[in-house]
């Protein structure tokens, strides 16, 4: 039985309007697209306000003066819109980049280098293990761009190896493409579920 709830109808309208964007650009799709950009920006402001309030303003009002620093730095971000004082916004930006880069890069050596190398120490006693170790080595050779031996006698075999590496990676990219398509089917099927079950009341 088709739903009688007006908000379900609004939701169905927006779902169909955005989907129509794939068929042809039309005014409905434009209305939906503009509504999306605006609603998302408004939602960011709402969620940002909660964080600023709870972690910044309240402790500050309760007397922890130290919170004055992040709050002032946060306000300083908005000097980006003044021609004269745009340089002031570099201070909060520099701090954010420092924190972000430091937090991410500090773990990278163990996370994406040593632990990955340790796990590639596979006993060369089975086809899969031998294939695995040499696939990693060959693909890694493909990514060596400057420190390559100069004398031509080595360069020839090296170029064959990096071609094999390219085939191995195109193989993996083919699988990744299929998985990407599958994920998008799974995501969009969620919208079909809404239209069928909540809107049209079928199934």
């Amino acid at each position: 039985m088709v739903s009688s709830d007006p908000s379900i109808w609004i939701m169905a309208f927006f779902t169909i309007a955005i989907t129509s964007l794939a068929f042809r650009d039309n005014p409905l799709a434009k209305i939906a697209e503009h509504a999306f950009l605006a609603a998302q920006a408004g939602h960011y402001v709402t969620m940002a306000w909660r964080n600023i309030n709870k972690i910044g303003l309240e402790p500050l009002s309760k007397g922890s003066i130290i919170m004055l620093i992040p709050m002032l730095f946060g306000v300083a971000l908005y000097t980006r819109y003044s021609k004269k004082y745009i340089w002031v916004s570099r201070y909060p930006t520099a701090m954010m980049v420092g924190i972000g880069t430091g937090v991410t890069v500090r773990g990278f050596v163990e996370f994406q280098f040593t632990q990955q190398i340790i796990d590639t120490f596979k006993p060369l006693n089975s086809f899969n293990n031998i294939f695995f170790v040499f696939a990693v080595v060959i693909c890694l050779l493909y990514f060596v761009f400057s420190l390559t031996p100069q004398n031509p006698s080595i360069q020839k075999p090296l170029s064959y190896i990096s071609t094999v590496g390219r085939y191995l990676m195109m193989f993996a990219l083919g699988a990744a493409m299929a998985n990407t398509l599958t994920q998008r089917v799974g995501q969009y099927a969620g919208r079909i579920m809404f239209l069928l079950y909540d809107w049209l009341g079928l199934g």
Partner: protein
Amino acid sequence: MDEKNTIWHKLQNIPREILYILLIISMIIPLLYPLGLPLPISAQTKSLYDSLNTLKEEDVILQFVDWGAGSISIHQPGCVAVTYQAISYGAKFVYLSTNTEGPLMYERMVTEDLQSIFDKYGYEYGEDYVFLGYVAGAETALAAIASNIRTAYSDDYYGTPIDDIPLMQNVRNYADYDMIVTYTMGSPESFVRQFNTQYGVVTHVHCGEMMTPNLLPFWASGQITGLLNGAFGAAELEVLIKRPGNAVKLTDVYSFSNILVFVFLAMGNIGFILTRKER
């Protein structure tokens, strides 16, 4: 030659709109007439299932509700299945989010699926499970949560100060988190870095199928313990806990849609190869 030529050209030039309608139909059929096909269980899902079976009473699990409206169909069933399995061991849940849409996704999941599970086990809000809401800052916020959760949250999503919440009394930092699970389309690697690599906390990830190739090297090395491969992972877990739900229905959709896109790929390429002689 001309007659054969037109067929192969036509094969290559089917208008886009027809393909889209076929694709939408291929999603509608299994949703109205579910097939319930047997699902092979992947090693990545099995390692999550086995890890959840080691839970004990009073263990604390951090569940990051990091999906947005775009992947409710993939992530909500996964979170419900993990909660359903973990609750039978008496584990406690701290839900939180680093995605702006997370809080609204949490409330939708509770009203739709989790409330009935919590009532069945007599779980009380504040005592057995809590929702802390959204925190900005992505990986920086994760680093803060790992070292001291109170720097990221001064209260829960509904305004109760964190020290007045019974469950949060003994939840301070990484030493109190028995395992964390993130359901995200963003950067699960940042969770692995800040929780597993730094403090050795058991980390599970429920990602989209597109992200699985990027995460398999970290699952293979044990840095990620359980890895749910999008709707497949959620469906396999639903099968393992004998509670089939929306995720299993989604994998029925996959049977139709993926084969249809395979036909697209084949048509495009067969047409291309046979008309290649002219070029």
